[in-house]
């Protein structure tokens, strides 16, 4: 499986770390809504088909990527920075 990191280019799966389901919404830090926390920590959709996932390019630029991967075919239909392009480091750009 290849993931095309928007910063580094197409790279082998072995460079990436799966960082979980991208559909989760973290409750506000002070929230005491245990159901919402439970859903965030434990509930997973486990779809057969397109799945919104977060991967870290841990063996590369270490960016977190939002990846849409088909769980049946492993086909990846989109990859983007989780932070959004506005926040993402640009190749060659100084911080």
């Amino acid at each position, binding site marked *: *499986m*290849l993931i095309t990191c928007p910063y580094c280019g197409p790279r082998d799966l072995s460079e990436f*770390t799966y*960082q979980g389901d991208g559909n989760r919404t*973290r*409750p506000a*830090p*002070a*929230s*005491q809504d*245990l159901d919402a*926390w439970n859903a*965030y*920590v434990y509930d997973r959709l486990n779809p057969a088909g397109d799945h919104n996932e*977060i991967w*870290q390019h*841990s063996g590369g630029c*270490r*960016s*977190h990527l939002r990846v849409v991967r088909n769980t*049946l*075919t*492993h086909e990846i239909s989109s990859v983007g920075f*989780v*932070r*959004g392009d506005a*926040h993402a480091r640009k190749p060659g750009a100084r911080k």
Partner: protein
Amino acid sequence: MNPRRTATGGRVNRQRPVRFTFDGTAYTGHAGDTLASALLANGVVLAGRSFKYHRPRGLLSAGLDEPNALVTVMRGKVREPNVPATMIEIHDGLTVESQNRFPSLAFDIGAVNQLAGKLISAGFYYKTFMGPAIGPLKGTRFWMLCEHVIRRAAGLGRAGEAPDTSRYERMNAFCDVLVVGSGPAGLMAASAAAEHGANVILAEADAHAGGSANWSGETIDGMLAADWAADMAAGLRERPNVRLLRRTAVWGCYDGNTLVAVERVSDHKAKAGPGEPRHRHWVIRARSVVLATGAFERPLVFPGNDRPSVMLASAAERYANEFGVLPAETFIVFTNNDSAYLSTISLKKAGANIAAIVDVRQDVGEAMRILASEAGAELLAGHAVVATEGGKALRGVKVQRFNMTSGTVSGEARSLSADGLLMSGGWSPAIHLASQAGAKAEWDNGLQAFLPPAPARNSRWLGAGAFTGNFSTGGALAEGHAAGLAACGAEPGETSLPTAETTLGSPEPAPVFEIKAPGKAFVDFQHDVTVDDVRLAHREGFVSVEHLKRYTTLGMATDQGKTSNVAGLAIMAEARGLPIPDVGTTRFRPPFSPVSLGAFAAERYGDLRPERLTPMHDWHVEHGATMQPAGLWFRPQIYGLAGETIEQAYVREAAATREAAGIVDVSTLGKIAVQGPDAAEFLDRVYTNMFSFLPVGKARYGLMLREDGLAFDDGTTWRLGDNDFLMTTTTANAGKVMQHLEYFLDVIWPELKVSLVSVTDQWAGAAIGGPSARDILAACVRKTGVDNKALPFMGIVHGTIADVPVMICRLSFSGEMAFEVYSPADYGTHVWEALMEAGRPFGLVPYGMEALGAMRIEKGHVTGAEIDGRTTARDLHLDWMLSKKKPFIGSAMMDREGLIASGRIQLVGLLSLDGRPLGGGAHIVEAVDQENPHGSIGHITAACYSPALGKYIALALVEGGKARHGSRAFISDPLRNRYGPVEIVSHHFFDPEGSRMHG
């Protein structure tokens, strides 16, 4: 000259004899022979014994689908078992042994299993080795003993014990078009793609490109097909954009068009060339793939179909035309389709006698009748072979009239003499790689075969030739060409294709897979699965293909059922009264053909982990340290003196530290620079306690939880500036903590202005502790004071040691007055040596992980053994660190019912009451029951001899924890046979007020 060798024809070089031995007997073949063709040329037809019944077996096929003739290749003492004789190219000195026989292939004691055939049908193990539930053998191990004996009797080759001395290597490759298979279709595809400038890899499992062209005897463009293929291959080899890989079996097709292959680089040579590996493993990423993998001929299922010299018609044709070998003198051909007639003519031309063609069909086409008479064969239409005769070699067959509609035989059985029986039950395209890629096979009722589906528009693979069910050579040429163009995105244009001699006959076989007559009829030759086993599976309810496969082991041998799957399905379909497609087919899994373990490993053997060494590593080794792995790191375990045991060494080191001073290398702790205007806010969110109030120049012990509220990691974080923190983590969790922090900054709180940099490798750390520690520092630290005022508990100062700038923080893990001295990594040893020098008058000793562990156990500090992913802050008595002023990671989840329940395991101390050591992992029980250990109330996480207490002590996680202080319990450690009384006490064994470190 070999007795069965033809005078001319084939690729073998009759001028070059090659000597090899099979089961100790020397034979001569020719250059170009496989072991299979060379044995046949020598008249050897008995090649192996079958898996379960030890039946004598000969060659069934001529290629990688061979299920019977599996042999062990000896390379010195190294054994390579289960290699098909058809895939071994002979060379001088080749030494091969047959398998699964004792004492010899011709006389095999295991053959008594044939008499017990009824007893050892499918499911034999499951039914038998559950053991008798009643009777005199109930509850005994009798059946286990039988199992041992029987398991030895069944099976394939024996693995060797000598280490494999061959070299293997691995290779990565990229290409525009990967063509798998180099028959007429594959050659055309590779050539079309190459002409359009594509980078092409063409992989061929056999020794020579050409596939069926090598033995079909057809003509292409007016030349012998084999010569046409050789010319094509030579042309491709000259192209710089083509890589032709021979002896390379593509065995797997994975995501993103990643295909894997194994190349047998030097197996065919007496001696590998300089630098040549034995096998080379390829990982090929291809933009597109053309599958031109051909098809496998199927056997027919009838009693005695496994006798030596019963083989596939196409295999005999291949032996005759490619290797110049006639596997027998006189053949009978048994078929349900037209292709066998073409094989017959081929064999006739090569000099074989054809006694008869037995065809299950009553209506045989005129063209085929003419071929039969040209071959001089009696045509027995509407007949079937019902038995074979002979012992370890075929003498003849029995035939009867056969009614295709009812599937029954009738009339007088007639005996025919022959020393070879050829069978053809139709063809199955080799769809394995497409199936691995997710394609669902579709049943074609005309061809009686599972075909690959037409590739989807955006499919990453294309097919050509027999793989798609197009069995004519002309069709293969055209499809190959078209697929080659399509694979590189070229438009189909006007091209004149090579012309092939038209194939006569219909590709559609009669739908007959099995002849029902008394006797063992084999479906899966390699796993000895008979037609009765398939019916038994049906009777016992294992009717789905997945159950059929697992119950009978049909198709689960190393040949993956290449010759047996379809017949097995057809027989099950008939038993269930369903059409074949309704029974379904299993999905093929990698590997398509066996891969040597050496090729998988290649150069990656031995300990592959990188070694992380601290800056002071060499110093430790030079000073007698025993180094011990800690993750990827190596840390001193003890600095043992001559004659000391490990316990004596760490007791001496720990005692010296508590009496004077000790120093330990802590460079392995994870260190993360957390910087930026929001750094303090960020730390407040990730730690359970407050960091924003921490003054510059002070450090604080911090605890992190996971999102689910369980404890994650601990460590100290130092505030070096308003926006500049140095976080330390445990050695084991350094990477995990970094990833955890990065996730929250990148995904959850992107608005926080914080930067994280791992600086673990930038700093060398030395922790120096003990009553004299401060005096030692005072003796060597310049440019800062180290007294209580300048450097209070948890204070940080900057100074120099031996002219090297250092950062010193006063914190303690040992419980003594202690300091962590950080210096730039490159100066780590320099500073360490200066500290040692300054400490000499004070009796400073270096100490290792054992002493560190003993002192932390005495103090009741937790590490990864207690923060084990199951414990909460409260379990570890760290609830004082849980801030109530702010939310933090895990704060919402940590108070869930189950996590605050009373009776949870809690950290306690244990004192050994019998004066003997305690062991990590031992269970704690209220009463010992050695016969039936039960009733664990917790376990020991760490144990040592405490020099301070003069006792064996341990930390443990025990239900109820604190409530049990002062009570007695027992350890129960059946693995180490250690039982004994302990007293449960507070985990603060030593100096619970901390007066020593606050000093």
